[in-house]
């Protein structure tokens, strides 16, 4: 059952990822990306990471990708087609860099001693377990990350206030 689901979701994830980069209409790309995110959430679930799966949907699918769609629709509302920007060296450079990344990752994958996945201990991946780990072992990184996000929020607010108008 889990095996079947894994292969099904893995194929869907890869196929939708290919559609994301292959589609001519940006909105369809975004939709394909949504499918990728959802299938990844199912893969997380299969590894008992319930909390990560739910958060993946709330944050990425529910918030970030909606903003992507906003930008796409406001910029190309008429046709939904992408801009015709072409840098001459972009395509060959992209191909070479992608091949390099693929080679590097493949090398790491082949050279690393991979074993079958360990059985997951009971209760791992639940909200309680993730929260406990986060606030007990990783408290400092957690707090640092939250301050980083706060800086980002304040920065965004500052950027949106125009020079000549005072904030009310």
């Amino acid at each position, binding site marked *: *059952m889990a095996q079947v689901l894994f292969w099904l979701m893995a194929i869907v994830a890869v196929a939708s990822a290919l559609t994301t980069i292959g589609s001519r*209409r940006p909105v369809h790309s975004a939709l394909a990306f949504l499918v990728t995110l959802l299938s990844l959430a199912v893969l997380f679930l299969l590894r008992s990471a*319930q909390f990560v799966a739910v*958060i993946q949907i*709330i944050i990425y699918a*529910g918030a970030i990708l*909606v903003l992507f*769609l*906003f930008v796409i629709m406001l910029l190309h509302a008429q046709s939904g087609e992408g801009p015709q920007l072409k840098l001459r060296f972009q395509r060959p450079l992209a191909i070479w860099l992608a091949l390099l990344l693929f080679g590097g990752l493949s090398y790491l994958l082949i050279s690393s001693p991979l074993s079958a996945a360990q059985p997951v201990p009971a209760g791992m991946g639940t909200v309680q377990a993730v929260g406990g780990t986060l606030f007990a072992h990783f408290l400092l990184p957690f707090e640092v990350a939250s301050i980083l996000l706060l800086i980002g929020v304040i920065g965004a607010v500052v950027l949106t206030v125009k020079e000549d108008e005072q904030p009310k």
Partner: protein
Amino acid sequence: MPSNISLLALVLITIVKGAVLIGALLTVFAYGTWLERRLVGRFQLRLGPNRVGPGGLLQPLADGVKAMFKEDFVPAQADRLAYWLAPALVVAVALTAFAVIPFGPPAVKLFGVPLFYISNVNAGILLILAVTSIGAYGVILGGWASNSKYSLLGGLRSTAQLISYELGVGLAILGVILLAGTLELPQIVEQQAGSWFGFLPRWNIFLQPLGFLLYAIGALAETNRAPFDLPESEHELTAGYQTEYGGMKSAMFYMAEYIDIALVSSIATLLFLGGWQGPFIQQLPALGVLWFLLKVLAFIFVFIWLRATLPRIRYDQLMDLGWKVVLPLALLNLLLTALMVLIWPWLGGGG
């Protein structure tokens, strides 16, 4: 998962429960429209639809037949994929969220599994938030795919509204979660059993009055209901993102709206009004379903009442309310709740 029945039987039971639930929700949609039209009629000193069947009870059926036989058109230059996907998505999402809603106590069992809910997942209420956040795609895609400026503006407005109020709703819910110490909905309801001082039910609304108010405001905004029904404000945007939809596809947007109303009413009932808790629940646990449905119905009635009473607010007022009133107050509520739990840990029952 109970071990005394096979996986196949469990899957079969779940499918049957799901089918029954979907049938019930479609009935809620049909008679939600009837209830709304009759009640709004009364509020406005009219009769409302009362011609088809006794008291107009067959009106939803007539409406359904009408929607089915309408021309099924697609606007010129519409994005066909997105145009078809949007209504299907909003309905599917609204139905899916009900999979984790418990209608009655887990003690009532059939074949060894709880009868009154489909599943009880660890992340319960979070899962509902996750599923409903996907619903925004239906609205934004429907608006964009129709290739019409009213639809696009309506869709963008609606999505901005959804995202803005999702934050307030999430924070208001967090207060209850802090008290309960769990995300599992059946457990949250179980903790609201009993009473304060012997007469006041031990519901979370008495510990979280501000949280309840904020949730109610957010719920109205998230379901695009009056006074927050800006996405479909007729005089500005015709019908917003639904403008270019007709026949059954248009009906599906309405279906999603009414099922969403039932959903937010159910969540409010579970989190703040004690879910299935009520008199004689100890003697007859199945009675809980009746209490649950009554509370949800009361909530839906208030929804309709508000629609007939309040004027629509302006878009900038809507955003101001969301970001400058609801969000800070929800943060304050969270802070107060955290202090409360710190000082009197026995209050919530989570410990």
